[in-house]
């Protein structure tokens, strides 16, 4: 479904990604792991067209998308929940969700989609007419995920959904991510919390300082010594 082939990405003169390749098959949950500044967010932004690769290509269902303007990417079935959620703070919960169905192919079915999002996140239904800025962190993350689902994507990209949330809420969000995946949505998940990400993912990739370092099945990565030591905090000298 998604094929990234040897992309190199720069911020001005500073190179952020070196020949990164990655693929996601239909129906998978794939985790993209790495520490702060390793290039995970850069990878997602490049798929969304907010950044342009200087080299390499990105394909969705065999069609190149790395040269089209970013506002056309959602038409290809790709939705992106950005880091820090990026909600529309002065709009209500319902308005945030409704505008999520902006693309014509989703707009007609927006009221059914709204009901589906509310059944997935009942907490949002209770806060329907509240401004997004007044929600708690967990509710904001739910709203950001719900908004992206309104476009009825086939590929959902999530950037650090666990960021700043209490452990209980993280578990709740990740169980919903699995639910979404069961409803035929392929998922590319960027996470610093490698432990929980690898528990829900089928496969994983590890980015280190802009280079793809490791890849494998989720359970292989969970048992990999390097991953254990660097990302799971399981080595002897960990505090």
């Amino acid at each position, binding site marked *: 479904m998604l094929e990234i082939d040897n992309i190199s990405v720069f911020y001005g003169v500073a190179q952020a990604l070196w020949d990164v390749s990655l693929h996601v098959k239909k129906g998978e949950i794939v985790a993209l792991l790495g520490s702060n500044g390793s290039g995970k967010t850069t990878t997602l932004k490049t798929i*969304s067209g*907010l950044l342009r690769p200087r080299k390499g290509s990105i394909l969705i269902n065999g069609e190149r998308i790395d040269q089209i*303007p*970013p*506002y*056309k*990417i*959602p*038409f290809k079935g790709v*939705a*992106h929940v*950005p880091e820090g959620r*990026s*909600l*529309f*703070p*002065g*709009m209500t919960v319902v*308005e945030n969700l*409704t*505008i*999520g169905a*902006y*693309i014509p192919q989703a*707009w007609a079915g927006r009221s059914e989609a709204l009901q589906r999002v509310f059944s997935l996140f009942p907490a949002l239904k209770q806060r329907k007419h509240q401004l997004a800025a007044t929600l708690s962190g967990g509710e904001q993350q739910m709203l950001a995920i719900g*908004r992206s689902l309104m*476009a009825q994507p086939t590929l959902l990209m999530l950037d650090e959904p666990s960021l700043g949330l209490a452990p209980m809420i993280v578990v709740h969000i990740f169980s919903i991510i699995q639910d979404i995946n069961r409803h035929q949505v392929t998922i590319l998940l960027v996470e610093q919390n490698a432990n929980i990400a690898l528990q829900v993912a089928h496969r994983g990739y590890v980015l280190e300082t802009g280079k793809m370092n490791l890849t494998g099945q989720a359970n292989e990565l969970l048992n990999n010594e390097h991953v254990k030591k660097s990302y799971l905090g399981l080595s002897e000298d960990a505090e």
Partner: protein
Amino acid sequence: MTFGLFVDQIINGVVLGSMYSLYASGLTLIWGTMKLMNFAHGEYYMLGGYFVYFGVTLLGAPPVLSILITIGATFLIGLVTERLIIQPLLDKPTWETSSLVVTVGLSIFLQNFALKVWGERLKGIPYFIGGTLEIFGVRVAYHRLLILAVAILVLSLLLVLIKKTRFGMALRATAQEKNAAIMLGINFYRIYMVTFAASGAMAAVAATMLAPIFLISPWSGISCILKAFVVAVLGGLGSVEGAILGGIVLGIAENLSVIIFSSEWKDVVSFGILILVLTFRPSGFFGQKEW
């Protein structure tokens, strides 16, 4: 000062203020959406005056048709100017300064274009409807009531557009979190073009309604942009509701000041208000604090 004069001036203030609201909401909408201070905003008002003048005198068209032609023409000119001179600067890192320079340049260009093509002689048109309404001893010209009705109609349409429609939601989304809007498939270039053009057309509507009262000249736009700026800041830059309220407040304040001072002091009063607002409440009535 008699009570009758006081009431008259309040009514005049509301009527004129409704026009301030109309052209200031365009200025504030452009700022709120594009973070652009459009110094050429007054020139769309000036063009509106000329277009309705030509419609009524040269074409001999009825006022309603002349007004519709004016709205269409200024909207089109707005689309073209945004596409040609604003859009190419959007993604450049120098946007904060280049956008100011380019709209000042556009303003000078359009003023001199009008001067060259249409001359410096002042132009005017007759009232769309004559006569005066008298209730409880207060006399109001029908034309003034028409002005108020048009302002209420256009501003209500604007608010419905912004609050209820798909386009309006996309506009607010772009204004609040541009990158997130892009990721939802919103083509912000198109949002900007329409916002810019609609704002110009609203200024032109105000010009058509005021054309029978204030004479039309290549410099008509200067008083428009200055008033619009005071009103937009008073209401809170970026807030359409603020601009509507601010326009009425400024209109009333100016007209009441005429009772106490002479009418030459009107602008002193409005800029006095601007200075007071900037000093004590720079976010205005409804402005966000962060900008």
